[in-house]
């Protein structure tokens, strides 16, 4: 028996296939793009091929992420908040606090010893402190998103970025650059600014160790270091951190395939 979790986020689409024992059989990741349906189908197909199984062997599929209601092959939908808690607990069973920084939102989630959500907070109405803030910073200095983290690690005198607006931060960066500040100091300032905002969100749910950092932004080493520096403690980061939501969704799929009753809204799937 196999189950799948499909996490269709605002920026990337992720699919994870688990076997009947709950072990990861395959993963697939790619940009969401304009068509959620196509992105989900492509990732699902790729994961099935990688797992070398037939589509019919996948007994239950749970969708999550902003695109969850548009996944044509999903049996049900669960919010990414529940899925991130579940997925983080799977990778790091000691997880009690999750910070997930994604393309356009940041979440702080408190979880219990079973990986169930106890409390959560999300950024509201504003993309400051999310992945988009980093994208814009990278654009402003003419680098790719993958380059800025490692460069920020070289900072000797991190600057303080005071702007809280994802759009206006560009002009703040430009003015620092024009004054001849070092690019690594500017970038470290950008990473610190996001870390500080994320920690403020985490404080609202309470920062109980272990802290697990998930979402696309957790691949950025600069962000990991900034977060650890500002928190004063180590954070768990997995090489699978981008898949945490999809893993959580697949774990819910496994529970359901084993006969657990639904706790989500089941009547709402729409194509």
């Amino acid at each position, binding site marked *: 028996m196999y189950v799948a979790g499909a996490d269709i986020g605002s920026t990337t689409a992720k699919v994870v296939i688990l076997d009947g024992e709950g072990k990861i059989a395959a993963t697939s990741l790619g940009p969401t793009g304009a068509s959620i349906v196509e992105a989900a189908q492509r990732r699902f197909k790729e994961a099935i091929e990688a797992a070398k199984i037939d589509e019919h062997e996948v007994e239950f599929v749970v969708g999550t992420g*902003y695109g969850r209601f548009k996944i044509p092959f999903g049996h049900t939908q*669960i*919010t*990414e*908040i*529940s899925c991130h808690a579940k997925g983080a607990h799977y990778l790091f069973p000691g997880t009690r606090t999750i910070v997930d920084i994604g393309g356009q*939102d940041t979440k702080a989630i408190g979880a*219990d010893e*079973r990986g*169930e*959500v*106890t*409390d*959560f*907070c*999300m950024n*509201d*109405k504003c993309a400051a402190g999310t992945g988009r803030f980093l994208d814009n910073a990278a654009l402003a200095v003419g680098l790719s998103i993958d380059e800025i983290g490692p460069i920020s690690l070289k900072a000797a005198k991190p600057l303080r970025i005071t702007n809280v607006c994802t759009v206006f931060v560009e002009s703040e960066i430009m003015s620092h650059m024009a004054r001849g500040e070092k690019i690594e100091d500017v970038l470290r300032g950008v990473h610190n600014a996001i870390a500080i905002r994320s920690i403020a969100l985490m404080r*609202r*749910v*309470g920062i109980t160790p272990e802290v697990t950092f998930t979402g696309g932004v957790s691949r950025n080493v600069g962000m990991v270091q900034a977060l650890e520096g500002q928190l004063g403690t180590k954070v768990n980061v997995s090489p699978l951190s981008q898949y945490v939501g999809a893993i959580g969704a697949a774990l819910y799929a496994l529970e359901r395939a084993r006969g*657990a*009753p639904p*706790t*989500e*809204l089941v009547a*709402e799937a729409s194509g």
Partner: protein
Amino acid sequence: MTDGDAGKDLQRRLLSEYYGSLSDEGRNGRKVAYMFVPGNVVELTRCFDMLPVYPEINALQCGIKKMAGDLILRAENLGYSSDVCGYVKNDIGLMLSDRKSPFGVLPKPDLLVCNYSGCNTFVKWFEALAHFYDAELFVLDIPYLREREAAKEDVDYIVAQLEELATVCARISGVPFDRGRLRRTLELSMEAERLWVEALKTAQSHPSPYDAYFEAVFYMAPLNILRGTEGCVEYYRLLLEELRARQKERRGPVPEEKFRVVFEGPPPWPHFRSFWELFKRWGVCGVASTYSKVGGLFDQGILHDPAQPLESIARYAMNCYTNWNLGLRLDLLRRYVKEYEADAVVIHSTKSCRSFSVGQADFREVLVKNDGIPTLMVESDLADPRYYSEAQLKNRIDAFFESLSHRRLLGG
């Protein structure tokens, strides 16, 4: 037993009579006093045959009727900032549109009574109207409620201001102050308030016969608009009868009541229905709310009293919900959770209303961390449709009730 619509029909008739009375013919020479809902002094102004107009209620009606967006833009075009309260901008927009409301053309004010000074925006709002309409402004200085009981010197201070206001009303209206009439008006207010308190309490039953947030905000309208009239008393008599009938039949607003919730904060009027739907899907029933108390914390024993006319008006003015100190507000939320056997608290924080929003993040923190009460905080606005983001709200609401369901399933 009534058929269930009699209350609604009566409310419709009473409100249409009220709006009719505001028309040029309807006014019949009577003067117009603008005032705010929380802690107002309508019983006093009624003694001078003055017709009350409530700009907040006009704004929320424009919100429900989807007019708010355009009116707010008109005010912004005049220079009002995006940070200014949506109700204010809606009202300024109405003024710029020759006061054409969803219920006809509203009259200009002869007197503006700013009855709550704890909200600085209220003061500035009426100062602006006084300027634009060249009308007289009377600002009541209402002390903040520091303790559960209003201090005697504070009550005396407000009573002295009310005496002064009575003189102003007599001068503007030409009607002399009749204290007997004030007592009779207060008698009617008190009667309606007592019936409303009884109606509110029916939500303690399982299932609750009505939604104490999404429906109560309509049930509270007669008290906010028509307090001190016979029609208002009649409405609450009917409402109580209807709710008791529903209670007896175990009929509620959702097919199956799965979550009992205490709501804090005003609703997003321009998206009222869709916001309600986000909760209904989960079988959520509001069993108590603070917003339904903006017209008075009657269930907390704050009633008008004909035996102490001006003193009871003063106490009522001081006890408007947003004038309560944060400790009292938090305690009220806790008591509602207990008394109405609620599963959770949902806070709808609005960008416009700082009187409401201040302290809400702290309420959430204390309720979750100290009291173990699951609490969700979501954000949009009460008047400005641009601040409502359905995908974000839905995600948070779904995640919240999903996690409550999971925990219920696991018995934790």
